């Protein structure tokens, strides 16, 4: 019984393949559109999911907790003496002040992030810049970058090097400099820091320690790394979701297109089905053939769409999306995203493409399958 069923399916699939090849024109255009829709959706999804993953990986190195000071509900530099106070809380392994800030460059209309690294800070009047800056301002090693301080005076800095491209996602707009230069540029008070990075011994106690910090220093706000991760996650998810919602319009058009293609049987095709019914095929048999048609087309289109999207995003850096994304910031990082595609994403894409296609073709397939063999007799 089972072998009979298998043989039946084998014969039907043979017939379906031959039948698809017999109508190359119609099926190729369907395949092209289908693969394109999958390609667009898959590209959007691979890009946002991979970037989400990159952000998470990068954030892994971020401090577990950052303590900021608030003045009147708004951010204010934090007194250095708070460092010792935080260190005195039980469970805190280390507390270190951080110096960083934003600098607006009117030449290209972009914001730089200036930072004093905790170790290996550049020498005085030397800076290390990120790739985004060096590309956009075309400044390289040994060139000079001038920055205007709060006091109105221009200071010149020699580029001692560039930040390695692996971390471009976060470092594209970064400038590293010495502490004295930083404080001089911004007229930053000597007894203050931007914020304090804290690490604790036991992850589970993070919340408790954060609470203790807030109790001990009521004018501060502790920010946990996992909160940041969550925020980035939801932003990327949201962006991915928005893209997909927009692409739903394309999906709807595709569904209508699929319906039309499946319904538009040529006279030849109608005749063929009529003949099959007349020589002894049931409606159910014709529906099986139609189902296999849909399955084969879906399989090929889906595979090709996914593979090209994969290549597009991970080998060609999603060049088709760049014009749309460039608007998000001036210094667009040029980075090779680590390939990241898992079965979960494939399943979601399947639900967004193959399922609607299948549903759109159910009724047209059925209408084709119920063609009366009678009509053949009298033709």
């Amino acid at each position: 019984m089972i072998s009979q069923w298998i043989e039946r399916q084998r014969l039907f699939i043979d017939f379906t393949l031959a039948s698809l090849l017999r109508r190359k024109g119609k099926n190729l255009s369907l395949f092209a559109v289908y693969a394109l829709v999958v390609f667009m959706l898959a590209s959007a999804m691979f890009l946002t999911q991979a970037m989400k993953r990159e952000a998470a990986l990068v954030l892994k190195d971020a401090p577990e907790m950052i303590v900021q000071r608030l003045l009147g509900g708004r951010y204010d530099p934090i007194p250095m003496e708070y460092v010792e106070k935080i260190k005195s809380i039980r469970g805190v392994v280390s507390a270190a002040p951080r110096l960083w800030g934003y600098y607006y460059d009117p030449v290209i209309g972009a914001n730089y992030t200036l930072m004093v690294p905790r170790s290996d800070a550049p020498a005085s009047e030397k800076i290390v810049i990120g790739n985004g800056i060096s590309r956009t301002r075309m400044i390289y090693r040994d060139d000079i970058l001038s920055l205007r301080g709060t006091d109105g005076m221009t200071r010149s800095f020699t580029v001692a090097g560039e930040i390695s491209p692996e971390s471009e996602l976060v470092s594209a707009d970064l400038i590293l400099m010495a502490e004295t230069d930083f404080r001089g540029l911004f007229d930053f008070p000597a007894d203050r820091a931007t914020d304090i990075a804290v690490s604790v011994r036991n992850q589970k106690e993070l919340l408790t320690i954060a609470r203790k910090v807030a109790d001990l220093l009521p004018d501060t706000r502790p920010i946990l790394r996992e909160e940041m991760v969550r925020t980035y996650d939801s932003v990327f998810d949201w962006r991915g979701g928005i893209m997909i919602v927009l692409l739903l319009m394309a999906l709807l058009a595709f569904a209508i297109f699929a319906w039309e293609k499946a319904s538009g049987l040529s006279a030849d095709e109608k005749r063929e089905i009529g003949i099959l019914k007349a020589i002894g095929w049931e409606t159910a048999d014709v529906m099986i053939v139609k189902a296999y048609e849909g399955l084969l087309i879906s399989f090929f289109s889906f595979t090709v769409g996914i593979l090209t999207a994969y290549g597009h995003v991970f080998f060609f850096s999603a060049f088709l999306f760049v014009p749309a994304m460039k608007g998000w910031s001036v210094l667009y990082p040029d980075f090779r995203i680590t390939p990241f595609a898992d079965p979960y994403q494939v399943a979601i894409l399947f639900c967004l493409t193959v399922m609607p296609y299948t549903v759109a073709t159910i009724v047209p397939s059925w209408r084709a399958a119920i063609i009366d063999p009678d009509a053949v007799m009298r033709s």
Partner: protein
Amino acid sequence: MIKLSGIIKIFNSGRTNEFVAVGGVTLALEANRVTVLKGPSGSGKTTLLSLIGCMARPTSGRITLHNGLLSGKRFSGIGEVAEVEVTSLPERFLTEVRRQTFGFIFQQFNLVKGVTALENVMLPAYPLGEKHDTVRRRALDLLEMFGLKARAAARVEWLSGGEAQRVAIARALMNDPPVIIADEPTAHLDSKLSVDFMEIIAKLKAQGKTTVIASHDPLVCGAAMVDRVIAVRDGRIDGEGP
């Protein structure tokens, strides 16, 4: 044999273009005989033929397939029976009965275009799920019987009229049906090929098959092996005899 009682077939019933194709036919067709339904076009003989061949269901009336036709055939769900009333069978079972009982030869041959002769002959067996090789061999044997083995791999568009006709007959015989149904088989054939066709029918009769032909070709109606000629007119039986 095949028994029809009070068969009526109405198309588009209830609408303005309502049309009575068959208006009350009672008929008993005997096994192992060649019966011809004679009548002009529009007489309803094609409809009658499709009703006999279980390709359509009558609007009212009963059709029964009797013993002799069905011996040795087993229909799943119905079991081994002496007689099957096909009028109220759902499509699935009707098709199965038809598949195993009737072989059709159409006016225009109705071979699937773009497909080889061999595959065309194999098609009726696909739903049955026999092994691909078995089906293929049987089809080849049939083609050989009609002298077409050399043309097995040819696309049907390249076949001559006579070759196409013989492929159509081979296809009709694929599932070894006891009844052959032919609708105006000689309409597109010259006299020689028409005579060839009737000779094949005679051979099949000798093998024990039943044949029902719808035709107004005098070559067919007057052929020697024809046992019975029934005149059909305006959806009713109008008498018998040549």
